[in-house]
């Protein structure tokens, strides 16, 4: 299966019922969703923490590039793959219909 093609103009956000959570008992960050609890690594946490439902994916990628002093191509690939997987699982929504399915 190939992931959906994501446009950098889309505005991704965590919909109601999906939220980031500080798991103090295990000392990890998790994404809580219906019937799911997903452990996040530092990269996943950083990406999702940037989703505010206002800024486009392009803005999110640029912010992460600056923070981690990393090239756009690398960050963009990571972000697209991660977000596309969560869109498939209905854990990230897009506020514009910028997602096309091949």
């Amino acid at each position, binding site marked *: 299966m190939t992931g*959906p093609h994501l446009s950098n103009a889309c505005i991704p956000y965590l*919909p*109601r*019922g*999906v*939220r980031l*959570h500080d*798991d103090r*008992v*295990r000392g990890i960050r*998790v994404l*809580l969703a*219906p*019937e799911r*609890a997903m452990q996040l690594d530092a990269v996943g946490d950083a990406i999702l923490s940037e989703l505010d439902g206002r800024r486009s994916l392009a803005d999110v990628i640029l912010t992460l590039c600056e923070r981690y002093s990393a090239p756009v191509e690398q960050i963009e690939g990571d972000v697209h793959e991660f977000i596309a997987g969560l*869109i*498939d*699982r*209905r854990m990230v929504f897009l506020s514009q219909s910028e*997602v096309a*399915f091949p």
Partner: protein
Amino acid sequence: MTEQLQPHDIRGNPVRVGLPMAMLAELTHRCPLACPYCSNPLELARVSSELTAGEWAGIFRQAADLGVLQVHLSGGEPASRRDLAEIAAAAHEAGLYVNLITSGIGLTEARLRELDGLVDHIQLSLQGIDAEMADWISGYGGSFARKMQVAEWIGAIGFPLTLNAVVHRQNLDRLPEMIDLAERLGCRRIEVATVQFHGWADLNRRPLMPTLEQAKRARAVVNEARQRLRGRMVIDYVPADHHAAFPKSCMGGWGSTGLNIAPDGIVLPCHAAQTIKGLEFENIRDTTLARIWRDGAAFNAFRGTAWLPEPCASCERREVDFGGCRCQAMAMAQDPTATDPVCSRSPFNARLRAEAEADSESDDVALVYRRMARETRP
């Protein structure tokens, strides 16, 4: 001399105790519906024995401290408790992700608005695709119409919604319409779960057992719909045990990530665990959740893999399914330590399959409802 007792399994092997992630809170066994496959035990907890909202609040705090992330408010029908909003608020305040599992019956728009901001997600059960089927299966006239009204309110308030379709021989052929309905209701997910033949469902094996042909078609329907609805709706599918080559990992492994609190405070490793004779269960009213989780004999009995018999002990899947379902082993092999008879490597598997096939060919449509009355389809 005091000796620190290490947790050990049913054969005396030491076990490693992890952290629980999910807790099923059965708030009551009361329910207006009478579904013939209800997962509640045959012996239902009495209303007078139910934990109070205050007791639940303490349990939720203990659960969060122990590592539980998600709580499923269930029953019976949780809306049968007048203090549901108070209980949901306590779970929310404890920092838990709150999932409400309901038939919708007993919920009003006003009650749903009370839960707004307290409940993270709602799972609405589906017994059939129209009133004729749903009201027959649930044993409750008018249930389908009310459920559809509740679904509309849920959507209007904005709760994320999952439809829980329980499927069996009588309704499995309508699966495509169930998926369409979930889509029309704006669901993010639909769970399609084949009846598990324990407890009440075991009394209804002949009318409910799906045929092998139905199970194959259902698999194809699910695969097609997953492709078509990708990015719009998630489909979780639990096929019939009897048609699988290997068992499911019950509860993701006994005592590994989940626990269940019965309405009267009994703490269980799985909702059907009381069918296993010889296990002793403790009540949250007598001790703490942490102690039951770590030291409870019932929780430790089947933890890990050291207790497994052959053919499980040398099986490459032992860390995948942990020998399967203990309750199923108890029911068919009369031995809770036996390999799940669902497994193709179990000596009981041929018998299990033959019985399932015979049941699936039955013409019997008389349901034994949860309220123990025997009725036929109108």
